[in-house]
């Protein structure tokens, strides 16, 4: 299972891309990664490392933020995707769950979920079935199905965003910080859903996460991104054992987890790059 990333063909390949915002702000400085078909690949890194930017570069949402890929190439199924519009990518099976919720405020929860099925040609009954499935993942949403999404709580919006992506039955999901703002037991649940989808439906995942701990538990392969560069990559299990990763990303030191109360007294700062 863990070596799934190695044996399968690469579904998505990012080759040495550079991204510039507003024509001046260079954010990604040559990022390469490959996502194997049917794998869960994690993209880790601190704030501002460029995870979101990488995902947006893949899903082509960068244009709407006045960013552009100036170098390198992105291949999906071996074909370049740089000049396709995001909608056609979704049709091709790549969907991104955006960071920071991004619900359709004025639509109800249910309508939000239904927009996820926009590109599908499935029958109404099929879609209703999927809707029920999403509701079974997130019973809270069922309770609030008729409320406007703009009035739901932060976590509920996060569930909507994820549920909406699931509704499109994609081949590949780019998940940006799915755990953000979710209650602990839900975080587990979400990752379990990811795992199940991956195993049962063969859905491929590229997920950007801050919660390194969970991410590395569920992913097959991980990349660590810092200041726009990949600084380390490897199978998740290996990464978890790497002492640096342990210290900086998992918050473990030799003598187990430290209390957050103790951080007052010391500061650590070590980076592979700076």
């Amino acid at each position, binding site marked *: 299972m863990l070596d799934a990333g190695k044996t399968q063909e690469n579904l998505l390949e990012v080759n040495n891309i550079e991204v*510039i915002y*507003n*024509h*001046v*702000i*260079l954010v990604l400085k040559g990022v390469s990664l490959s996502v194997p078909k049917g794998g869960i690949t994690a993209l880790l890194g601190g704030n501002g490392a460029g995870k979101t930017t990488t995902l947006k570069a893949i899903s082509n949402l960068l244009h709407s933020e006045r960013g552009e890929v100036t170098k390198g190439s992105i291949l999906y199924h071996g074909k370049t995707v740089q000049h396709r519009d995001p909608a056609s990518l979704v049709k091709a099976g790549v969907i991104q769950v955006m960071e920071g919720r991004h619900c359709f405020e004025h639509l109800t929860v249910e309508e939000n979920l239904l927009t996820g099925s926009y590109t599908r040609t499935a029958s109404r009954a099929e879609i209703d079935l999927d809707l029920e499935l999403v509701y079974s993942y997130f019973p809270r949403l069922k309770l609030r199905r008729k409320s406007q999404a703009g009035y739901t709580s932060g976590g509920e919006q996060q569930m909507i965003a994820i549920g909406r992506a699931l509704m499109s039955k994609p081949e590949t999901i780019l998940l940006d910080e799915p755990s953000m703002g979710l209650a602990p037991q839900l975080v587990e649940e979400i990752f379990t859903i990811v795992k199940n989808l991956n195993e049962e439906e063969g859905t491929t995942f590229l997920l950007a996460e801050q919660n390194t701990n969970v991410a590395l538990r569920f992913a097959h392969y991980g990349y660590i991104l810092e200041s726009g560069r990949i600084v380390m990559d490897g199978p998740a299990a290996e990464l978890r054992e790497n002492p640096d990763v342990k210290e900086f990303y998992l918050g473990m030191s030799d003598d187990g987890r430290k209390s957050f109360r103790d951080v007052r007294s010391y500061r650590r700062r070590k980076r592979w790059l700076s």
Partner: protein
Amino acid sequence: MLYREAGDFKTSYEDDSQTFPIRFDRLAFYAALVVAFGIVPFVINDYWANAVALPFLIYAIAAIGLNILVGFCGQVSLGTGGFMAVGAYATYKLMTAFPEVNIFFHVLIAGGITAFVGVLFGLPSLRIKGFYLAVATLAAQFFLVWLFNRVPWFYNYSASGQISAPERTVVGVPVTGPHTEAWATYLFCLVFLAGSALIARNLTRGATGRKWMAIRDMDIAAEIIGVNPLRAKLSAFAVSSFFIGIAGALFFSVYLGAVEVGEAFGINKSFLVLFMVIIGGLGRIFGSLAGAAFLVLLPVLLKNTLVGTLGWPTDLAAHLEIMIVGALIIVFLVAEPHGLAQLWRLTKEKLRLWPFPH
């Protein structure tokens, strides 16, 4: 590197909050001031004054005013024409009622009166937001124009309903009426523009400006942080209308000399000034100047090229002219939605990196 800011360290917070923190900019600014006050008055002629300089100066004042409301406080207003009319009619009434008072004060007081009217029409902004507010301000536009047209007291019961500015002088030099000299009207308006820009700059770099911008960016959060939305919005309406009133006053008394309200202060005026603000850059004082310059100069330039140089029929030229203006507005927005000021800023950022691409 063409454009540098390295080696420019600030040693105090006063220095740090100054208007042009970069030396190069500061020098350019002083140079512009010297040219505007010291050189232009000596070379300007009637054509340049009346066709270019005066409209530019006056629209720039109006644009600064509107920018405060739209760009800084985020309240879109389409009532600019109406508020300019208030300024114009206020000066007219003042000029004719108190001929002994200096026109300078008339213009200022007219600004004050406009500020008051602006606050009145700003009251609904507490409830109404976004485009609803924009459309609601049209109520001010149409109502004010109707009022000035309808109540003869405003135009001193003149037979035609037009108002004409009598001659008034500043230190003996006429600035309104038929016998003005180009340099005098130019300088008179320039002083007001300089003053407006300075005041606007001071207000927007301090606490008031921050309140406005907070309301603009997220009014609810601003209120939770402690900004009284009523006072912030109304003060923006007041300050904005003050400048717009001054612009209206100058527009009537110095520039045109005679106006009819519906014609001079119609809804097109509102749109024109809003154009300037957006093309120039929302929330940038410099943007207002750039926007005003752009929209005053562009048509004149186009007309002179198309008709004067290329010898096209005037009507073709006029049709093409508005097409080009429209297209350029779109091109600019597409190239840089945040206006000329932002374009300028990005250019500088690039220059700073030059010759490296980033």
